[in-house]
């Protein structure tokens, strides 16, 4: 048996897949490849694969990571070669590593994500070049930002800066802007990139309109040393 961690794309074509849809598409791709996989026991056997996150519907990702148990001795290159011809557009295999026997669950260790949120400038300043350092200053320099997080189950107050520690950066392209934000995903919760966008727009006067498009640039493991590693980096296993 070989345990592998593969990096797969979640491209524009798959943007509207929920996490479950995406997991199913991955499982079906693996089945088409002919790789013989380990399955769970029971009435309804499931392919043994697990993911680095539950990527929401509407979000694309540079890479999503999947751990898989292949019953044969295989190399990453062999797996890639088998998956590539049966991968739908937007779900291409990118890279991978062989894992040791025992690894921590990816969902438990992936605790930092970098998003690019794209949207239009507010109508009032279209055609102008915005001084983004200044526009983002009060948000970036704040020590704490209280935010009322509403979920279907409950509403509570969180500190946004607990999750968004690094400064948000902006890149204007014509009448559009891309905000790059790093967000912590912790035991106690997280904040969605769309929520940060709307918070900035409504409470910090960011000159942006309300529609946005989200792309996840990276999902990472922030170690106790404060450094961030890719899930493929052997020091995170």
């Amino acid at each position, binding site marked *: 048996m070989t345990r592998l961690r593969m990096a797969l794309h979640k491209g524009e*074509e*798959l*943007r*509207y*897949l929920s996490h*479950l*849809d995406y997991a*199913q*598409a991955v*499982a*079906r*791709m*693996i*089945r*088409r490849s*002919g790789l*013989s996989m380990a*399955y769970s026991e029971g*009435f*309804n*056997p499931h*392919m043994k694969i697990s993911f680095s996150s539950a990527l929401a*519907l*509407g979000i694309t990702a540079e890479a999503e990571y999947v751990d898989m148990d292949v019953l044969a001795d295989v190399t990453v290159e062999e797996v890639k070669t088998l998956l590539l011809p*049966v991968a*739908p*557009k*937007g779900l291409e295999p990118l890279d991978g590593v062989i894992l040791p026997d025992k690894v921590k669950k990816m969902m438990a260790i992936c605790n930092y994500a970098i998003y690019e949120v794209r*949207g239009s400038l507010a109508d009032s300043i279209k055609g102008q070049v915005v001084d983004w350092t200044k526009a983002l200053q009060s948000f970036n320099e704040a020590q704490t930002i209280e935010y009322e997080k509403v979920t279907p189950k409950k509403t509570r107050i969180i500190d946004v800066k607990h999750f968004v520690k690094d400064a948000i950066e902006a890149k204007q392209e014509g009448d559009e802007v891309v905000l790059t934000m790093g967000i912590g995903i912790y035991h106690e919760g997280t904040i969605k990139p769309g929520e940060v966008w709307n918070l900035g727009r409504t409470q910090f006067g960011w000159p942006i309109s309300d*529609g*946005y*498009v989200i792309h996840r640039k990276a999902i990472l493991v922030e170690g106790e040393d404060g450094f961030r590693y890719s899930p493929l980096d052997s020091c995170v296993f």
Partner: protein
Amino acid sequence: MVTLDTRWLQHVQKPARYTGGEWNSVVKDHSQVDVTMAIAFPDVYEVAMSHLGIKILYSLVNERVDAAAERVFAPWVDMEEEMRNRKIPLFSLETKTPVKEFDLLGFTLQYELSYSNILNMLDLAGIPFYAKDRDMSYPLILAGGPCVYNIEPIADFFDVASIGESEEWLPEFIDLYKAEKAKGFPGGKLAFLRKAAQIPGTYIPALYKDTYTEDGDFKAVEPLYPDVPKTIQKRIVEDVEHVFYPTKPVVPYLDIVHDRAVLELFRGCTRGCRFCQAGMLYRPVRERTPKRLVSIAKEVIANTGYNEISLMSLSSADYSKLPELVDLLMDEFKDKQVSVSLPSLRIDSFSIDIAKKVQQVRKSGLTFAPEAGSQRLRDVINKGVTEENLLAACTNAFKSGWHTVKLYFMMGLPTETDEDIAGIADLAYKVLDLHRDITGKRNGKVTVSVSFFVPKSHTPYQWYGQQGLEEIHRKQQYLKSLINNRNISYHYHDGATGYMEAVFARGDRRLAPVLVKAWEKGCKFDGWSEYFHLDTWLEAFKDCGVDPDYYARRPRDFDEALPWDHIDDVVCKPYLVREWQRALNEELTNDCRRLPCNGCDVCPALDTAIIDYKEGGRVDKITYGLT
């Protein structure tokens, strides 16, 4: 090409319904093909994608290098609103091309309650409803599927209807279209349609005129031109063994209604249940060999990555080589985690043995369809099943570890009395008691599902006046009062949808304006109970001065002309009349599959025969049509 902006699209329900890009979907450059066709299903993605006919035609057309087929389904109400607000026309999933720009737009008509969605889709596409208002700059609107056998209520909206199985018809039609298109359609639309009418199995509503008696009864649908056939005989594929099979079906990303590989074992059913339109329309029975089926299954599984394969047919347990096929499939897939499922079970112990083999016991409940509660009424509908059969099947099932049984019944059948209704409750209790006797446990569950019978064209009940809604409501309550056990759950529909279905199932062309009116008043997704509004429909009828009871509830005479007489499913009328009389006499008619011919005329009229591999393939016996 239509563009969909994530900024709003991500806020509609399940945007993946509208974005395509699934595995095995086919994207072609329209400038590189001669004919483009949009294949439409007037319901939402999850329902449409579950339909085998769509898979067949989509792949069949895309096999051709000179043609492109793309899919288009009914947008859900939230998406429709966005599209209307943003002036986005109805578009195809593959290339996001506005539907209006295709050469052909083919709808599959599966149920009458989807008709309002057809109009809604045409409207969204910017295409005029009535065929007479469309020249060749619009796509030709095609229809296929079971409802074309009485397409009259919506005939005025369609240019062409394909009667019967379309796998051989459609390529012939596309060939003609391609040739005429290359010549620039000399003589215009009418000339083209007259040529198309020469392809067997083609009904062109505009080439026929409907007439009525002075009393306002239907008189005839007759050809306007001498070269147009008086009646249109259905097409069938005689050689189902070698006919094209879609082994690369589109694999949806969303969870659809039937999300698995589909293996069609055979076509047709000769059991002869008198209420069943499919049983009459799809005759004769034509099986595929286990060898061919296994090779199809292997290809489909390899091409899709599905982990379940469903053995589909009108009555799959009747497949003559079922045990052999199941063994072959289980053997083929035993290390590949592919399960086999049997959607329709026959009520006998044999079926349970097969179900035991293929299904993990307890994985799901078992479903049986006795259809009627008493032996008398089951004889009336020719459901050749006895209480002993049912109890024997349940005994086997309970001994094998099942605890849940679902029973399907119909209400409103001809000759039905309250005693027959009480029989439904009786059967449910008997099954529940049986479970306790066998298992000694009290955790058995029986679900009783009762639908409202809709008399359909081309069946022995086509002359029968549907029972009134109040009567059905009374019977529903009566049955409810008889079921007082928390282990028996009782489900029924309001019945109003069944009433509207009955109107359109046996209507004529005078219903077209009513449908348009109902659509104007907001009717759509009528098959979804939350969107069905009987009051709105009744208003539309009233506004148009049309009486729905005239179509649904009026008993018809045998010698009365019927609006579907010119659409010939080749089951002869004398056979249907005799079946009606036998029903009243509570007489059973044998399954002609292995017993002698009953004289429905399908085999001799089509110069064909039943194909049954228990009998060695093509069954050569004397077949005839009653006169």
